[in-house]
């Protein structure tokens, strides 16, 4: 989500990876970003200029972002070629790096920063092309990080719920592993993070919180109907938290990043053993017959 700190998270992932001497590459997919918090190996802004698209196609900011992404997605095979080339780099070539910087060795991780307007990526053909090319065509273990802003969510249970519904929608849309990354832990008192955790762990407390909103007539329907609705909603989301890993981090201070890397490892493992990749492989074998 916009303002949840995606770029700072990518920047923190990058700095932690290099500290741990894990080779990585970082890519920027946001055509409208002004200053990038990390050094990108590939940057959509080098290929397409957001402001020129606005001028040339006479588009507003939204249309320009979508068009830039579409143009980029149409060329995504070249990104894939680049990744393949990087992955097959020989160790010998990488050891030439005088500084001993692990960056140029075949990457263990590739981080993608996505546009601020989340639906430009999630509800567009181009976002689908990017994720499907990585996950299905190239079969790279691909994991979605859904970054959420703790301070905004803890203030309002409905904001929290809308975000979780959206995260859940992402899981269904992509069918690849998803990690919920609660960011900006440094900005809230410990109690607040605990409060979020209790909403996720204990559906009774979440249900009670939601019902308070029912009384304030915030949820349509009103009366008994909405009480039962908040209960089914709490139950459904509760199951979602059981199945989807979730970590609390601060991209700003670096707190919790180890647990994020651990979650990444197990999610990539889950990807390898998923029904999704099994079906992808099966489809490939049957179509090559």
């Amino acid at each position, binding site marked *: 989500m916009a303002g949840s700190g995606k770029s700072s998270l990518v920047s923190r992932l990058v700095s932690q990876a290099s500290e741990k001497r894990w080779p990585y590459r970082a890519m920027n997919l946001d055509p409208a970003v002004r200053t990038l918090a990390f050094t990108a190996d590939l940057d959509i802004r080098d290929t397409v200029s957001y402001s020129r698209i606005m001028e040339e196609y006479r588009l507003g900011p939204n249309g320009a972002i979508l068009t830039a992404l579409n143009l980029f997605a149409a060329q995504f095979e070249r990104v894939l070629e680049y990744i393949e080339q990087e992955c097959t780099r020989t160790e010998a070539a990488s050891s030439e790096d005088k500084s001993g910087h692990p960056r140029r060795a075949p990457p263990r991780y590739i981080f993608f920063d996505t546009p601020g307007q989340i639906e430009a990526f999630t*509800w567009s053909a181009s976002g689908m092309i990017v994720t*499907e090319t990585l996950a299905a065509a190239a079969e790279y273990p691909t994991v979605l990080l859904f970054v959420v*802003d703790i301070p905004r969510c803890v203030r309002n249970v409905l904001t929290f719920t809308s975000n979780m519904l959206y995260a859940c929608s992402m899981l269904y849309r992509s069918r690849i592993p998803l990690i919920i990354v609660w960011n900006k832990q440094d900005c809230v008192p410990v109690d607040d993070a605990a409060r979020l955790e209790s909403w996720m762990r204990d559906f009774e407390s979440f249900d009670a919180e939601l019902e308070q909103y029912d009384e304030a007539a915030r949820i349509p329907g009103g009366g008994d109907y909405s009480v039962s609705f908040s209960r089914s909603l709490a139950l459904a989301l509760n199951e979602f938290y059981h199945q989807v890993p979730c970590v609390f981090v601060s991209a700003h201070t670096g707190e919790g990043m180890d647990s994020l890397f651990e979650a990444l490892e197990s999610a990539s493992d889950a990807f390898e053993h998923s029904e999704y990749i099994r079906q992808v492989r099966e489809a490939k074998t049957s179509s090559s017959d």
Partner: protein
Amino acid sequence: MFAQLVMGPAGSGKSTYCYAVQQHGQVVGQTVHVVNLDPAAERFEYAPVADIRELVTVSDVAEELNLGPNGSLIYCMEYLLEDQEWLEQIISDMAEDDYLLFDMPGQVELYTHFECIRQFVYLIQHQYQVRVCGVFLLDAQFLADAAKFFAGSLTAMAAMLHLGVPHLNVLSKVDLLHRQTTEQYHSLGTRFETPSRTEEATAAESEQALDDLLERFLNPDIPSLVAELEGQMDARYRALHERIGALLEEYSIVQFFPYSVADEDSVGELLLQANLLLQYDDERDVRVHPELD
């Protein structure tokens, strides 16, 4: 006064929907005014009764305050709420049973993260006594299978919950589904599920398949969708499918109405459904036939 808030991701066809409803309104004698509330809108076919860009535009804000596209949008929406004069003027120019469509910005964050749209709804409901319903559009091409159907419904539900007004879900551009060739359709979502079958299908067969597909999602049978999901995803998500299925069923959000700008009947049906939500005809009948009271 009655109003539809027309929402949906960028490119889902919000502006075209507004135009189609306005045109249809003329045919059936229901005057429909459209207000553009997307400060980053590019062009639309309808004639707006008011346009937020008269007040503020994203490009001006971006330039003057040096904000990115998202920050500028939020700034514009907050500006709209602060300077209520503009809104007040529009509403005071309306008659008591006038009908408004608000063409909203597409950014999902507005419906999950930020308070401004919720405040806007609260304001027009309580201060100006406007009866409001939400219309959420989703492009039909993104609802190709059970998993994507769940994804779409959950996104719609997030918006619905956030605004707390009666809600109508619309599957837009259904005519484009029909027009797609087998090959295009093949690349849109069923790529990995049924490659050989779609490849062999003739054009007529694929059109029939599309009709069936559409029918499945317009009148969804949740247990069969859950069964399909079990085949699509890891076994550990099974309980999740069931619980979300129960949620969708219980709250009847699963109902999507088909719409295509080329099909006048579908537009008429949508207007009828929205009128039902708004209790538009009840109110009007009372006024038109006072002797029945």
